[in-house]
């Protein structure tokens, strides 16, 4: 293959300088089987970051949608993307999930933490302030899914009241982003949150063995995580396992995490992988070998769950930008095997040009909101006894099993100051409600420079 074929500009986009956070033009450049985001800061030089690596090519991973601006964008955009987030009229997607950070406190001190939790001495927002923030989400985006986050939200003793308040405001799906320590220690705690109206637990779950938890979280947590899952199951809460995947630490457990989650189905509703990002708190500026990209995780899933998971099962998202995530759904069979549901990549536009008419961003967002609420909450189980004499066909058997044992496998790649791609940012549907009441794309909110300077989190934009 000639060099011209090996090196090809795939797209022009924008980014920032990781050192000074100045806005920069950037390109996505294919080099062999990897794609790099390349940008040049007049002051700090060129930055090249691997953003895609593997046999699933970036040009094949598409899901175009018609952008749709926020319903009440911020009136003034002075500095341009990503400095005027709030959201502005250049944003192309609505809120699917709004993150509400209810504390900066944490009972762990992890080596990696997007929120750099436990470092500050800031006060928790009051219940009255949280009420205002809920209202602000409703005003700006309408009803959407809510994720209560932090810090570690279970540090607050009034968490159940915060959940009740959210439900009273009209949010039907509330999820808790947690390390699971309190849920694991206290059997009655999960029930109190479920009774308050919580639907789902987004459980930090980096691996199945203590060496992984020790390496990333600084504590042996395997037994506590399992207790948390058991307590959530008894309380009627759905659980999603959320591993942060870090090269050299837990890439070898990707398949085992899926099998572990499947063992706890239907309490565990799926696994949501997050490749490590370098924002907030992290040990050192990243080299390309410190990153794992979405296609590499899909390939590892196929390799480590050979025979059950294939890379063709995975599809790009209908809601967020195609390059931000992948997902596939499975039916967990009684023998513990996973059977793929749906047509994977064939079902969307990535392998065909016959995508007419182009769906709107809003349609994708609506699908995602309802799918997430349905899949990540505990299943509605019909307790009616099955009449053994009744006629049963394949469709009945499928429907009965799928009602409880559908299992989702997904992954989402966050962006940091090195790999930030403004086209992706403008398609973002995961928005943090800031303490000031502005909705800000998750990756912009958490972006930090090499010197630890933040664009939005407790900071003024440059």
């Amino acid at each position: 293959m000639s060099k011209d074929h090996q090196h090809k500009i795939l797209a022009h986009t924008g980014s920032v300088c990781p050192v000074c956070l100045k806005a920069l033009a950037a390109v996505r450049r294919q080099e062999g089987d990897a794609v790099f985001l390349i940008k040049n800061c007049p002051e700090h030089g060129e930055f090249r970051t691997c953003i895609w690596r593997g046999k699933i090519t970036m040009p094949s991973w598409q899901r175009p949608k018609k952008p749709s601006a926020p319903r009440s964008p911020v009136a003034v955009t002075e500095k341009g993307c990503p400095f005027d987030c709030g959201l502005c009229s250049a944003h192309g997607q609505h809120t699917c999930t709004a993150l509400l950070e209810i504390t900066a406190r944490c009972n762990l001190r992890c080596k990696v933490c997007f929120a750099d939790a436990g470092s500050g001495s800031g006060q928790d927002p009051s219940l009255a302030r949280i009420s205002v923030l809920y209202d602000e989400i409703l005003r700006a985006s309408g009803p959407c899914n809510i994720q209560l986050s932090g810090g570690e939200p279970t540090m607050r003793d009034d968490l159940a009241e915060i959940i009740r308040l959210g439900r009273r405001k009209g949010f039907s799906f509330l999820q808790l982003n947690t390390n699971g320590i309190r849920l694991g220690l206290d059997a009655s705690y999960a029930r109190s949150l479920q009774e308050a109206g919580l639907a789902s637990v987004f459980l930090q779950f980096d691996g199945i063995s203590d060496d992984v938890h020790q390496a990333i979280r600084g504590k042996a947590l395997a037994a506590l995580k399992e207790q948390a899952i058991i307590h959530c199951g008894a309380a009627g809460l759905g659980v999603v396992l959320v591993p942060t995947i870090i090269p050299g630490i837990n890439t070898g457990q990707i398949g085992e995490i899926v099998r572990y989650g499947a063992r706890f189905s239907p309490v565990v509703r799926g696994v949501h992988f997050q490749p490590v990002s370098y924002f907030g708190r992290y040990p050192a500026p990243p080299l390309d070998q410190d990153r794992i990209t979405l296609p590499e995780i899909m390939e590892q899933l196929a390799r480590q769950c050979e025979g059950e998971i294939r890379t063709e099962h995975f599809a790009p998202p209908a809601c967020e930008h195609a390059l931000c995530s992948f997902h596939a759904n499975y039916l967990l069979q009684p023998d513990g095997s996973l059977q793929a549901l749906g047509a994977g990549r064939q079902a969307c536009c990535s392998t065909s040009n016959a995508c007419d008419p182009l769906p709107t961003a809003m349609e994708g967002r609506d699908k995602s909101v309802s799918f997430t609420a349905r899949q990540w909450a505990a299943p509605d189980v019909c307790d009616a006894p099955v009449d053994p004499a009744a006629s049963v066909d394949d469709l009945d058997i499928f429907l009965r099993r799928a009602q409880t044992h559908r299992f989702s496998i997904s992954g989402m790649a966050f962006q940091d100051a090195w790999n930030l791609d403004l086209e992706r940012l403008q398609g973002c549907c995961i928005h943090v409600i800031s303490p000031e009441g502005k909705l800000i794309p998750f990756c912009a909110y958490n972006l930090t420079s090499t010197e630890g300077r933040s664009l939005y989190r407790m900071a003024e934009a440059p």
Partner: protein
Amino acid sequence: MSTFSFISQTTWRCAPCNQELQPEKVNVSYMGSVFTVELMVCSTCGFVLIPEDLAMGKMHAVEQLLEDK
């Protein structure tokens, strides 16, 4: 795995073949998943009758579960 399910007395006939419909096992596939069910079929040309309540009921529910988000 499949037993009697959607076979029933019906007034529908296969018009081109002028045949009564007979119960037969049929593979129904959607988005890569295959289900075996018994339906009324024209044994000459293979025409399959899918009654409205099946199409709007169980089949619709299965489609929704299989469809991508």
